């Protein structure tokens, strides 16, 4: 593998009409890590994700992926390079079956996505692979279910399966456990752990127990700027982080360990 860091931002800035949502962020995500971006509400986490995937255009700064400058690329091109994001609200194709959802993602590697003269039967050869991916997130029973009919947690699982189908190098997850019951949270934690094999993950998460269980490295953002960085231990000890973000929770958590 080429370099130590998969993703790097240099002096990344995003301004909205005089309001600086992201302020000179230098982020380095090490290959193979599960890296968390945490911080108080409105710190700019989602905005950073939007900048990385070009759903927003940076005001200033640089984004490097495998040492290559991708600041000027468009969303789809970035995805093709191997950076795939999931959304804060679950993103699926509602009137397609779970199997078809995953297949759409797999299709990209076929190079047949513009082949309008072929029958869609030519896609059947992807079925097994799609099925395997569904299996890996526990959705095998729902392969032929239309996605709208899936429950929230399952939609998230499907989204993850689709994301993995892209064989991304870097996965961006925005609050993957938001709105889930405890059981589901545990399932998703396992899923992410599994997905992380051989990949790098950058995630935003407010559930500190998830963060503490999963993440190798944590960057704390406040008011758009990096406050500190380190592993969970280091970060949760930091009095400034406690004050700005964790409150007394960090100590409680530790107690629970």
């Amino acid at each position, binding site marked *: 593998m080429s370099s130590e860091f998969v993703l790097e931002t240099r002096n990344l800035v995003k301004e909205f009409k005089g309001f600086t949502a992201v302020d000179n962020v230098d982020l380095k995500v090490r290959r193979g890590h599960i890296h968390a971006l945490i911080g108080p509400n409105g710190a700019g986490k989602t905005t950073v994700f939007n900048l990385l*995937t070009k*759903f927003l255009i940076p005001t200033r700064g640089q984004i490097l992926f495998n040492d290559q400058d991708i600041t000027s690329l*468009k*969303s*789809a*091109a970035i*995805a*093709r390079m191997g950076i*795939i*994001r999931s*959304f804060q609200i679950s*993103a*699926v*194709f*509602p*009137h*397609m*079956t779970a*199997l*078809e959802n995953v*297949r*759409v*993602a797999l*299709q*990209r590697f*076929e190079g*047949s*996505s*513009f*082949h*309008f*003269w*072929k*029958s*869609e*039967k*030519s*896609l*059947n*050869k992807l*079925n*097994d692979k*799609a*099925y395997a991916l569904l299996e890996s997130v526990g959705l*095998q029973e729902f*392969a*032929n279910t239309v996605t709208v009919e899936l429950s929230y947690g399952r939609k998230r699982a499907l989204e993850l399966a*689709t994301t993995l189908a*892209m064989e991304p190098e870097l996965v961006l997850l925005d609050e993957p456990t938001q709105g889930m019951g405890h059981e589901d949270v545990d399932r998703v934690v396992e899923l992410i752990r599994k997905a992380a094999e051989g990949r790098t993950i950058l995630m935003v998460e407010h559930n500190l127990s998830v963060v503490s269980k999963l993440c190798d490295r944590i960057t704390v953002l406040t008011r758009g700027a990096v406050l500190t960085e380190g592993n969970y231990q280091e970060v949760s000890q930091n009095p400034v982080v406690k004050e700005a973000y964790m409150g007394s929770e960090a100590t409680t958590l530790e107690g629970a360990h």
Partner: protein
Amino acid sequence: MMTPISENTATKRYVENALRSERRHFKIYAVLLLLALVAPFVVYPVFLMKILCFALFAVAFNLLLGYVGLLSFGHAAFLATGGYTTGYLLSTYSGFSTELAILLATAASTLLGLLFGVLAIRRQGIYFAMITLALAQLVFFFYLQSPFTGGEDGMHGIPRGALLGFIDLQNNLMMYYFVLAVFVFGFGLVRRIVHSPYGQILKAIKENEPRATSLGYNVDQYKLVAFVVSAGLAGLAGSVKTIVFQLASLNDAHWHMSGEVVLMTLLGGVGTLLGPVIGAAFVVSLEHQLAQSALGNWVNVILGIIFIVCVLTFRAGIVGEFQKFFKKNFR
């Protein structure tokens, strides 16, 4: 490469379901084609040709609205471009080959479609509809002012010519089968597209565009291709229509025409393959029948009432409602 037959039941069921519905559709198409082949012996062929031309137009339009979720309000421009190009070629150069004229006309609309598409494809929702409308209005103005179109009077007496040089299209029956063939080609193409790997991506884009983007699909390009194909087919419809009626007129370029095709498609069932065909047949027959009946001066009122009733009671369109009914009761 041999596709290994899958071992697991879920994917097997998937493939079987697809096959079963394909077979059922195939039966329906076979019956319809048979009907279409004998129809001219029962119904006045020119009238049938009119239906087929509009049906092709609506099918082309539906490729966009029904399968990509793009409402174009400027499709008249393509219909008219197909028509005027054909008309110009056939009436200016005597003996010009009919099939070449059709081809060139289709190419011209396709090019225009590319131009429209490049300008419009980035806009969303109603803005897309309006920019296509605006562009079509500019095209309308061009045709209104250009001397070769005959302005408001239109182009008349365009020769039908002979197909491949020997099939006399002056004969209504010959002409009919030719139009039918063109229609079947257009319909088949759209069907193929919808059920192709590319069609799957279109469907994904329609369902959730940001997600498709984030999976690495350059959605604008996919949309653009669909737009251009739709424009080309609309042009083909216009071209054939011009040959059938031996005339090209500004009506084809007017925004009412763009509106009419929306109505046909919605009435028949948007996002279904046969919907636009049925819708076109319905609207054309209705207008035709009403215009000639004692209710002649109430045509608009009756059409208006039908639209209202359609929206209130069978919103999925004729074919769409039928499918719903079928799914509910027989499956």
